[in-house]
């Protein structure tokens, strides 16, 4: 189910001193294609997300979203257009409750945050939508806990929940399952799969776990030292000699069900 191109980068480049973390990247992300970005440490996965979401200023190149140039657009305007992200290191509102954490992006999306004399408790629509997000990520029972009091895995779930609450068209998840136990991991992946199937949000996931990558995604982008190494279906990436050489090595060959790509464990 390939839709129109959402986000496109043209000759996107970034350097930290002499280290190149993005070199002439030409990538496009189409609506409805669940994409994984993989690559060894320092490959520029997070940098790519930082550049397209506006977290880092673009040094060279162009980013367009639905044909509109967003290269210099501030973060909050990109979020309004529908580009959002989660963070690799949990980056939520620690002293606020779980519900308040998802309420902030929900209220922002509904355009209610300028209301200084209304009551949060009376924002029925926002509260309902925020609670629906918590249900999705499985945190309904924790809604009144401070985010800081959550377990590590739950914090990651909340991290994804806060990003989802902005109801993005294109959502970048930066290692969403890092540090999760297998149960939490499968729960999160299940909800990502479900949300992706609903078609409202297109997911681009940075992931280290190869099982996750090959079971989840329809397309895999491999980065290496800031350059695009390979881009295609999981089968193609798995069979690519250069990918095996620089990154995957035996991991791919050993994968269970290597002859049946696209099926998860």
């Amino acid at each position, binding site marked *: 189910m390939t839709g129109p191109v959402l986000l496109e980068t043209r000759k996107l480049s970034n350097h930290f001193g002499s280290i190149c973390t993005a070199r002439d990247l030409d990538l496009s992300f189409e609506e409805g294609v669940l994409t994984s970005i993989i690559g060894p440490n320092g490959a520029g996965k997070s940098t790519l997300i930082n550049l397209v*979401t506006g*977290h880092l200023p673009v040094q060279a190149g162009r980013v367009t979203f639905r044909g509109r140039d967003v290269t210099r657009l*501030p*973060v*909050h*305007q990109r*979020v*309004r257009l529908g580009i*959002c*992200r989660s*963070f690799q290191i949990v*980056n*939520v*509102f*620690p*002293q*606020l409750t779980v519900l*308040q954490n998802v*309420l*902030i*992006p929900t*209220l*922002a*999306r509904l355009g*209610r*945050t*300028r*209301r*200084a*004399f*209304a*009551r*949060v*408790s009376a*924002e029925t629509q*926002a509260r309902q939508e925020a609670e629906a997000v918590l249900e999705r990520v499985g945190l309904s029972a924790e809604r009144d806990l401070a985010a800081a009091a959550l377990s590590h895995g739950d914090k990651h779930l909340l991290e994804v929940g*806060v*990003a989802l*609450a*902005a109801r993005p068209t294109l959502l970048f998840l930066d290692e969403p399952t890092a540090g999760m136990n297998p149960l939490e991991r499968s729960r999160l992946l299940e909800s990502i799969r479900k949300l992706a199937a609903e078609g409202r949000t297109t997911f681009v996931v940075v992931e280290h776990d190869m099982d996750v990558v090959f079971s989840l995604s329809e397309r895999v982008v491999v980065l290496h030292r800031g350059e695009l190494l390979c881009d295609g279906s999981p089968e193609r990436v798995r069979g690519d000699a250069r990918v095996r050489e620089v990154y995957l090595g035996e991991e791919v060959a050993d994968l269970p069900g290597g002859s049946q790509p696209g099926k998860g464990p």
Partner: protein
Amino acid sequence: MGKKVSTAAWLLVAVALCLVPHVADRFVTYLSMRVMMLGIFALGYNLLLGRTGLLSFGHGAFYAAGAYGLGLFSLHVSPHPLLGIAVGVAAAALVALAVGFLSVRSSEVYFSMLTLAFGMMVFALVWNLREVTGGDDGLIGIARAPIRLGPARIPIAREGQYYYLVLSLFALAVWVAARVRASPFGLVLAGIRENPTRTEFAGIPVRSYRLAVFVLSGMFAGLSGALEVLLESGARPSMAHWTHSAEPILVSLLGGLHTLTGPLVGSLLFVAMREIIMRFTENWMLAFGVVLLVIILGFRGGVVGSLAEAMRRRQAARRAP
């Protein structure tokens, strides 16, 4: 603490405040006004510090803008107190808008230093523009003219009368601060304090919200300054000095940063302690410093914060077998 208990407490305080001029002597009435004015100042300041997590050293300037705004309007245009207060608050909002516009783009220490720098510039202006501000003499001889509302004419010349104007505006300030804290806007401010980056990724232009709350808290400072001029019949340049901006910080630390009542209790403690200590020693700042040290080290989260925490623990202990 249940909702009923807190409503009852608020009502009790309101009744007590209404009775002060009738049951207490002039000095206590005067001090109560000082507490309420400091309370307004601290309440607004705390929307910035406690809520949004921004430390400003420029609020003395906004306080002075309110004071001199009312003073100059009263001396040159009209002595109408309500108009004067409105002009003072508007002047404070304008100065806060200018200072805030240039400061909110920086964060943390840089923000604080910029507000300090702009605050000192305002102080220098107030000090040097002798023809306008009276220089180090300040503005003197500002009378409390009666409030004319159509045919009605409410006198506020006597302290017992002026008290009720201060009380009304104090109540208004508490109401505004409470509403803002409970609003979506207030929740976003807490989000900015907790994590500005994430707030931006929630789709919120963080700078604009910082500027908005900066101006709002500047207006509280201006209101407080205007009321002081009416009480003391004059404006002093020291109002604009950056050390004056430290007063609401101390008050907030005393009472507690993260509650609505914290700055109010803090103002009461601050004025009471200053009055008591000043009777025994000239060096009241020294003794006050020691008390403050004890409270900051001993009462985490201020007096209100620690008391609330202690009560929560007691209730939890009672519930557990």
